[in-house]
């Protein structure tokens, strides 16, 4: 996933992901593999009004973004979709930093160099 937007006012991955998607990713990085139902139960504790539909749509959106992947699992309780992470948190953050620096270098090359060298000192 290549971030297309960086919100300066937001903290952590919320700077590049909408709040609920960021929350889902935080949980998914802890769990690594989960069903939408499991995520719903977790998020419901913090957001009592959240609906199953919202979690399902957002998890599928994260699949479209390439941050999660969806597989069919057959086991006890029948067939179901299980979602798993495609990237670790560290790899994701690295990608974000790389994309932002690449954008800065192509748009404000001199200023970026100057600032980075000042930071090094």
């Amino acid at each position: 996933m290549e971030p297309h937007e960086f919100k300066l006012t937001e903290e952590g991955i919320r700077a590049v992901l909408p709040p609920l998607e960021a929350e889902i990713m935080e949980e998914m990085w802890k769990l690594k593999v989960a069903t939408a139902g499991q995520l719903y139960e977790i998020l419901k504790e913090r957001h009592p009004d959240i609906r199953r539909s919202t979690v399902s749509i957002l998890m599928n959106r994260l699949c479209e973004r390439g941050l999660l992947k969806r597989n069919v699992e057959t086991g006890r309780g029948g067939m179901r979709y299980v979602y798993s992470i495609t990237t670790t948190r560290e790899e994701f953050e690295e990608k974000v930093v790389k994309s932002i620096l690449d954008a800065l270098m192509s748009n404000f090359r001199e200023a970026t160099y100057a600032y980075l060298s000042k930071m090094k000192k």
Partner: protein
Amino acid sequence: MLYLVMLLQLILAIGMLGELGLKLIVTSALLVLLIYIWAYTSEPKGSYHALEREQIPWLYDGVAKMAKKAGIRMPKIYLLEDYIPNAYSFKNTLVFSLGLFEVLGEEEILAVAAHEIGHIKNGDTKLFPVIAYSRYLMMLLTLMIVVVTKSSLVSFTSLILYALYEMSRAEYLKKREFGADHTALGLLDVPLSLKHALEELKYYEDLRENVKTNALPSIEPSIDRKQGTQIIETHPSYDERILRILLEINPGLPQNRLQ
């Protein structure tokens, strides 16, 4: 009304096209029959998985109980690999997408199953393919009448009949949907679960269609499958169905209070 309009168009075709019209009708009817037989005898292919009882006992047993109550044979149940919640029926078969299990609870899924059993009990799974294929016959007849006959009055009449056919077909299909809901309410232990299921599915679709952009600015319709828009809706809206369900469960409620 639907059958009357079809009959009028057939009479017009035979009257105006003569032997050609008759041949066209017989050939098309045979073709429709062949497609119907093929569709009725073939099994679903692709991402469909037949459900065994031990996989989801509550669903299997729930369907068995309702089928018995409805007086139909135990339907085959298939699970479809699709993340969009969906359910439908054909022949004596029920299909549930995996997405349905993500957004609905057990009682609500059983309510959806009851609606589909309603379609089977009411004979819709036999009737709907005939109506769907007959539409092509109506299109063909109208086209032939317009192209072959020189009279603009006849062409105009045929086009009007076709428009009437489309409207009455939509109305007829809507009635069958309400009929399936009515049957479902009689099969369910908790009739309100059908209302809850429809509300959740409506919420899901609203979210997909970006209606709730303020609540969830991240939802973009581009992630979802593209859907064709219909000029004449053949399916009643969720609101219409919910209203009817409420009126059926609480016959004493005045309509204006519900709206």
